């Protein structure tokens, strides 16, 4: 267990009297002593607490969501009218590249990582993740990566090759600015966050479950997050290779994608999509997990067919590795490859369909409560199904060949990513906000937020089906009146509808931001168990204490919290309430652990992550700077290795607390 003792203020050591004198670190680890601040900005900067890191992931992702959203609005303004003048061709290329990069790598992935960080330990009854310092390191890598990718805006122009960055278009000849270099290096750094996060969460889930919580008693969110981490574990190294090859080509003159030298441009496509298709499931499965938590709670029923949801999630995880070439049907792979990947792509629709059916049957006959979280979940089911159906049409290779690189594809993946992934995340915001902050998001404003987003999203992406089938290509910075067509299929009309829709969507998201501000200012505390929830993360205070649970619960059921509140009446076979949430919590408090050891904060994750952008900038501008960055990294690793994750009494001067620290964490 990642439980270690830190005799610093704010940590629950019941033996310590109130008003403990200030703690002074005494021992030095690689020139730095341990950080001790437990309040203020320093307590965030050097934290290793999975909940604080979860919120930091969330805040960072939210910032990039706004950035990526503004980029999208600029794209739609450019395309609202024929021969748009908002952006020039070069800037337009940068805009769609960075919109996709930001939304995929800097919003959906880190937002899901934030939810995973915050709720996976709580859902499995653990006090932290397996490697708390590596967890902090991962967050700083994500932030550093996001900054490096976006730095290019100010240093000669952002990446402009599309988020898939096809070779040879990404080579120095066609992309002469530094944008692609910043892009490769920044994503490389952000990839470290995903890889370390994957290892951390898998170990946490496999090793740190509360007593009695077998794998098949885990909440579905935790299950699907685990599947996602396995996908990341094996997909990230492949994109790492691709990014290295591209960096070596652009910075050091290697020839990997130089067609004139005999290179095979399909190499990049294969490497990218072997990563890229599992990545698609990385984006959607966390939201599937959130929906699988929200629907049962607001249907007042257990999830229909829990094992089916779990195993279909795992099936998606496996089959997801065998469908990557459906992104390449138009590249001339040959009939056998195309047939194989076509069939595999049709097959992967089955486990996804299983989930849709399970969610629908969860609601069937339930006492539905249409809270905002529930609305977003139901919205996901409907919108994702639409996107899923257009996805199946892509699996038919001859049809896909017609659709490739048209707006039909754009329509498809925005229905599954906006209507799917983002609606799931919003469902999670409304569902878990009271848990994270102890205050409820305003439900009335939430309803407006939802309806504006649903209408805006359908207005924006619905017409793109028509635009695509009419042949409007993706990534063209202008369209002309002369080729707009007539009648119902006039693309001028539908482009305008889509652009207006994007403003409606933006307003919907603005309502969400307003809701956050209103909620933050509100003094009304959320009830302990506002939704009558079912899983362990609700079996603690809101927001949870630093040590999560006063005593680690022993788990006997799937939906343990529900089963502590309700029991089956032997006569009527209906569930009746036997305890309130407050009583369940009071029970845990009565059995509170006397000596709870929490991981100690550390400077090293931040120092180590700070070395990476220095190396990146050094590779681009001056090799001595890169070497200096490398030295920072070495120094940080050295200090990290010396500093035990277990703080012992000698690490601080006075006072020492009772008991010796024993721990196995090597974060």
């Amino acid at each position, binding site marked *: 267990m990642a439980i270690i003792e830190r005799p610093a203020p704010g940590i629950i050591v019941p033996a310590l009297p109130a008003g403990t004198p200030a703690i002074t670190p005494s021992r030095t680890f690689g020139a730095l002593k341990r950080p001790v601040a437990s309040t203020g900005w320093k307590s965030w900067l050097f934290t290793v607490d999975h909940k604080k890191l979860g919120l930091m992931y969330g805040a960072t992702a939210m910032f990039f969501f706004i950035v990526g959203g503004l980029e999208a609005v600029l794209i739609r303004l450019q395309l609202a009218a024929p021969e748009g003048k908002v952006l020039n061709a070069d800037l337009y290329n940068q805009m769609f590249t960075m919109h996709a990069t930001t939304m995929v790598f800097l919003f959906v992935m880190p937002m899901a990582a934030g939810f995973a960080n915050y709720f996976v330990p709580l859902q499995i009854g653990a006090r932290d993740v397996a490697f708390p310092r590596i967890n902090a390191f991962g967050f700083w890598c994500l932030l550093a990566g996001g900054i490096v990718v976006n730095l290019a805006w100010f240093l000669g122009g952002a990446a402009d090759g599309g988020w898939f960055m096809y070779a040879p278009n990404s080579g120095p000849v066609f992309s002469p600015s530094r944008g692609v270099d910043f892009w490769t290096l920044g994503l490389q750094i952000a990839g470290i966050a995903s890889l370390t996060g*994957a290892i951390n969460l898998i170990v946490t889930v496999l090793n740190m479950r509360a007593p009695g919580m077998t794998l098949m008693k885990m909440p579905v969110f935790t299950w699907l997050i685990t599947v996602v981490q396995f996908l990341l574990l094996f997909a990230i190294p492949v994109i790492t*290779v691709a990014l290295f*090859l591209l960096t070596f080509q652009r910075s050091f003159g290697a020839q990997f994608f130089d067609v004139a*030298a005999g290179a*095979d441009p399909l190499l990049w496509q294969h490497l990218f999509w072997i990563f890229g298709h599992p990545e698609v499931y990385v984006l959607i499965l966390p939201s599937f997990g959130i929906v699988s938590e929200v629907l049962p709670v607001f249907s007042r029923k257990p999830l229909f067919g829990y094992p089916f949801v779990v195993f279909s999630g795992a099936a998606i995880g496996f089959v997801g590795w065998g469908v990557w070439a459906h992104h390449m049907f138009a590249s001339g792979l040959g009939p056998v490859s195309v047939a194989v990947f076509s069939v595999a792509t049709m097959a992967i629709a089955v486990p996804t369909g299983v989930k849709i059916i399970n969610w629908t049957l969860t609601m069937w006959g339930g006492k539905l409560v249409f809270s905002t979280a529930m609305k977003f979940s139901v919205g996901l089911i409907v919108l994702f199904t639409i996107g899923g159906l257009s996805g199946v049409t892509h699996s038919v290779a001859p049809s896909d060949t017609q659709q490739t690189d048209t707006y039909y594809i754009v329509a498809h993946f925005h229905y599954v990513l906006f209507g799917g992934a983002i609606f799931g995340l919003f469902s999670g915001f409304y569902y878990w906000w009271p848990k994270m902050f102890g205050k409820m998001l305003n439900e009335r404003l939430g309803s407006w937020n939802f309806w504006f987003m649903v209408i805006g999203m359908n207005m924006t992406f619905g017409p793109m089906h028509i635009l695509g089938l009419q042949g409007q290509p993706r990534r063209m910075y202008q369209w002309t009146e002369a080729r707009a067509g007539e009648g119902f299929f006039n693309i001028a009309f539908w482009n305008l509808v889509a652009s207006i829709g994007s403003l409606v969507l933006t307003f919907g998201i603005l309502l969400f931001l307003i809701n956050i501000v209103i909620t933050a200012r509100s003094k009304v505390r959320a009830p302990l168990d506002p939704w009558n929830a079912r899983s362990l993360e609700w079996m603690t205070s809101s927001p949870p204490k630093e040590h999560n649970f006063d005593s680690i619960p022993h788990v006997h059921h799937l939906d343990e919290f529900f089963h502590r509140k309700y029991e089956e009446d032997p006569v009527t076979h209906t569930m009746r309430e036997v305890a309130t949430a407050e009583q369940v919590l009071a029970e845990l408090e009565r059995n509170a652990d006397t000596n709870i050891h929490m991981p100690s904060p550390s400077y090293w994750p931040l120092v180590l992550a700070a070395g990476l952008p220095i190396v990146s900038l050094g590779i681009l501008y001056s090799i001595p700077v890169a070497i200096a960055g490398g030295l920072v990294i070495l120094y940080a690793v050295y200090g990290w290795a010396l500093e035990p994750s277990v703080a012992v009494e000698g690490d601080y001067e006075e006072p020492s607390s009772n008991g010796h620290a024993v721990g196995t964490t*090597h974060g």
Partner: protein
Amino acid sequence: MAETTTHDAHATSTGLSNVKLGMWLFLGSECLLFGGLISTYMLYRGRVSDGPTPEQIYDIPFTSVSSFVLLMSSLTMVLAVSAAHKRDDRGTNLWLTVTALLGATFVGGQVYEFTAFYNEGLGFTTSLFGSSFYTLTGFHGVHVTVGIIMLLAFVAINKRSRVPGSKSETVEMIGLYWHFVDIVWIIIFTLVYLIPV
């Protein structure tokens, strides 16, 4: 009860310690990294442009010797892990140092080989074969170098008795990494050097 659940060092659900499970997962991920690099090399090894071909420059006897040295370092690594489990500090430090030296010999051989190839006309930018050969074997060399740094750093920290956590487990983890890098070399040596284009 509460005391035991929070204090018990090995109360993990799988019975494997967190570090060991984490290391295995990391090595699983590394398989895909080398998989990608090896695939790239296999695709490009015949594309030599005007530069030398693999047959012209590979010195199989020399590389066989340096491969043998690297494989022997796995043996000394096993001895180090065994010494660490017996809490034999001197033996641990000794065998770790020997392992590092054998690893350094291998890396030295690689530096020599790269220099020789470069002088024979195979630069990083000469051909697709050159780019992918240096990238693949270079990545492996960097992995060995990182291993050497870990070995020597452990010895240095151990001499000052400042190893945090379980010493034998830390040595075992370095060992897992080291053996993995060796196994990868067996695959690279076979595919790159032994199997003709």
